[in-house]
């Protein structure tokens, strides 16, 4: 720390007036030699990173940071639980492609973030997470609200830091944003001891990031892609598997061009939905455990599987012994560790999906010799769509999702929790555009939906956000209704209430002889009154007619709404690949 700089420094905080980057950049030259406290550095770094919204919850160890945030101009959203903050940040990141930023205090504040970190790690969402920590002098003494956050979170973060010297703080924050948002995105955590945020140091933010141990490969190997192009030319049964890598690379247009140029049909993973238009002729639907018959048939029978940015998750592949057995497998992934992890790969390509598609569009001039295969698959798509019985037994959850799709003209951002309703949302809502489906895929986190919807709405305020939730998951983070109400976020909360943990109940029905061990929620709160307690209009619907009417009324209202849909409780998600089965062994395919 230079005392000379302190004497020469003007007022500690640089003024932030407009959003113009260039005049500010000039200002930075002057301000970059400023002495700031660690907390002020944090706020200034967030400004430089263009952070619009911070999801945070105060506490003892972050009091200096909260003091610096007071009237600082950065929007702060106060959830009612730290888990709500981090899922909201995930929803924000999923919709905007920008990093979600989270702040929590030490100990319990930090441990409450663990589920969200693990979720973001699994689904490759960029987050920068700040946790308070007890002062460096007492670290390791079991001080009040102390937890070894670095130790606890290491396996569920892309990288993490504990800052031990305030002079390091600007570099660490800059690195964290860089690491979170580049290569395969993921959560980065910065642990901030209280004395570090109070201490003063010189703020420098202009030095470029220098991380010799972190150099993600962006440019794919051209020779490998030529091999792939040659394989396309000779393939008889090619199929594209498109994962969330397409969305991260913003490569949806290129994917569409490539599929149309080569006439190779496309299967999406759950997290990839929206990367290829849901209503496109060449779209076979989602693959995997609850995927379409056509998609799974294609994955089983293919002789050339082209994977763009999917990680061959077990819910997609089913039993690996039966997965794409006759196929030459090409796998394009920005994370080299994903290639060959689960499925042996013949043409590995490390790099950005968009860059790979650009090269492939140069290499592939037209379709190969597989028109019969494509028409066969399109017949299967036509003959075996997702289906359900529409009878007079009550309101069907699948119908509700279809009705939401009709009422929003397929243009809403759909946020789900985890379970049956999540699969129905994936099956029956058609996503025409990317980044409109927000769901917890890898970790399968119940309680994700409502807070993620908050983040999604903040990330894209102009768009309708439909939070399609189950009654189980909704109750895990129901307290975040306060945030919806407080900030008057126009989220349409639609609870598909089947009075059960539906997916658990389904598995118990199918694989445990109907022994419904603790999966039926026999007590339910009055959801309408619950909404009203948060000053949110609440409705209950039990039939199609009122559901359709209330949905449209809700969408016409400017503010938040909660609709409880009393749906049939015995409904199962079909078709299904039973655990241990291959993708060719689906049950519940449309008769």
């Amino acid at each position, binding site marked *: 720390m230079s005392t000379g700089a302190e004497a020469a420094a003007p007022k500690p905080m640089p003024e932030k007036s407009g959003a113009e980057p260039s005049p500010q950049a000039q200002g930075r030259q002057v301000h970059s030699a400023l002495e700031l406290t660690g907390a002020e550095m944090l706020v200034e770094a967030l400004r430089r990173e263009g952070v619009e919204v911070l999801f945070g919850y105060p506490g003892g160890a972050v009091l200096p940071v909260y003091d610096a945030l007071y009237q600082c101009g950065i929007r702060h959203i106060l959830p009612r639980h730290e888990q709500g903050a981090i899922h909201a940040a995930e929803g924000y990141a999923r919709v905007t492609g920008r990093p979600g930023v989270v702040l929590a205090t030490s100990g319990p504040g930090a441990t409450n973030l663990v589920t969200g970190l693990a979720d973001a790690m699994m689904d490759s969402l960029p987050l920068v997470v700040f946790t308070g920590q007890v002062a460096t002098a007492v670290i390791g003494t079991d001080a009040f609200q102390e937890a070894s956050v670095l130790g606890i979170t*290491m*396996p569920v973060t892309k990288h993490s830091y504990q800052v*031990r010297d305030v002079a390091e703080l600007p570099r660490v924050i800059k690195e964290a944003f860089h690491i979170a948002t580049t290569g395969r995105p993921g959560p980065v955590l910065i642990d901030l001891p209280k004395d570090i945020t109070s201490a003063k140091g010189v703020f420098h933010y202009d030095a470029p990031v220098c*991380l010799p*141990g*972190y150099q993600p490969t962006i440019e794919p190997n051209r020779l490998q892609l030529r091999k792939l192009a040659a394989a396309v030319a000779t393939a008889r049964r090619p199929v594209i598997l498109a994962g969330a890598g397409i969305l991260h690379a913003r490569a949806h247009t290129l994917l569409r061009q490539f599929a149309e140029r080569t006439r190779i049909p496309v299967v999406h993973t759950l997290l990839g939905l929206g990367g290829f238009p849901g209503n496109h002729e060449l779209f076979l639907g989602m693959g995997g455990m609850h995927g379409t018959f056509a998609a799974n048939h294609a994955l089983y029978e293919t002789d050339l599987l082209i994977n763009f940015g999917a990680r061959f998750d077990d819910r997609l592949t089913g039993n690996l012994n039966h997965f794409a057995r006759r196929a030459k497998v090409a796998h394009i992934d920005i*994370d*080299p*560790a994903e290639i*060959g992890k689960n499925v042996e790969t013949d043409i590995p390509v490390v790099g950005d999906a968009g860059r790979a598609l650009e090269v492939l569009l140069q290499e592939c001039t037209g379709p190969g010799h597989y028109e019969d295969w494509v028409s066969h698959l399109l017949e299967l798509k036509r003959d075996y769509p997702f289906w359900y019985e529409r009878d007079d037994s009550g309101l069907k959850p699948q119908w509700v999702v279809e009705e939401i799709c009709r009422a929003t003209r397929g243009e809403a951002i759909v946020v789900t929790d985890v379970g049956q309703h999540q699969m129905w949302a994936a099956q029956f809502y058609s996503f025409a555009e990317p980044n409109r489906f927000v769901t917890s895929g890898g970790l399968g986190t119940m309680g994700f939906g409502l807070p993620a919807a908050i983040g999604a709405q903040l990330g894209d305020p102009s768009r309708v956000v439909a939070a399609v939730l189950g009654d189980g998951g909704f109750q895990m983070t129901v307290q975040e209704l306060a945030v919806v109400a407080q900030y008057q976020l126009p989220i349409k909360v639609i609870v598909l209430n089947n009075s059960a943990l539906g997916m658990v109940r389904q598995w118990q029905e199918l694989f445990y002889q109907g022994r419904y061990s603790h999966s039926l929620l026999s007590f339910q709160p009055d959801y309408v009154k619950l909404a009203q307690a948060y000053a949110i209009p609440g409705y209950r619907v039990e039939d199609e007619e009122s559901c359709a009417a209330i949905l449209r009324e809700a969408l016409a209202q400017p503010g938040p709404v909660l609709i409880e849909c009393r749906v049939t409780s015995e409904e199962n998600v079909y078709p299904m690949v039973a655990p241990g089965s291959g993708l060719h062994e689906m049950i519940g395919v449309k008769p």
Partner: protein
Amino acid sequence: MNARILNVVVNNRTGVLNRITGLFLKRGFNIQSLTVSPSEIDGQSRMTIVLATGDERIVEQVIKQLSKQIDVLKVQDITDQPIVARELVLIRVHSPIPTRAELTSLIEPFRASVIDVGRDSVTIEATGKPEKIDALLALLRPYGIKELARTGLTSMTRDSETVQEIARFAKSNALWV
């Protein structure tokens, strides 16, 4: 056992060992031995990790997962390269005075030395490849090993200069094995 030897260069930062061992725990990989110490470059450490598997796919995954760590600068599978690999062992052997001359002559071909002497025991230090250490232990076991500590393998690749240097050194110093 078809073990593999990895040479890993890491940033010498708090928690880096945790990151590596945590990764092994998370992915279910088995470590046979792991040594870590500062390297010739300030701020960097060198690890030698011996994997208890020769399964190619697992080894490839280990290398890729290690490489993904931001504090890992370099990972090399050096098993099939010309390398120097050594470990150090300390052995306290039961040894009443009458057996000591015998013991000393026994360990002599191993270039091992007695570094501590007690009433009923001596402590022996030896350095070498794991097979050599194993052989020494097999010879000493009948006397009664009271305490044993092995460092695990540490290693580096030879380059051509090193190879020449070893040749020169071996000529001038007969003790070099």
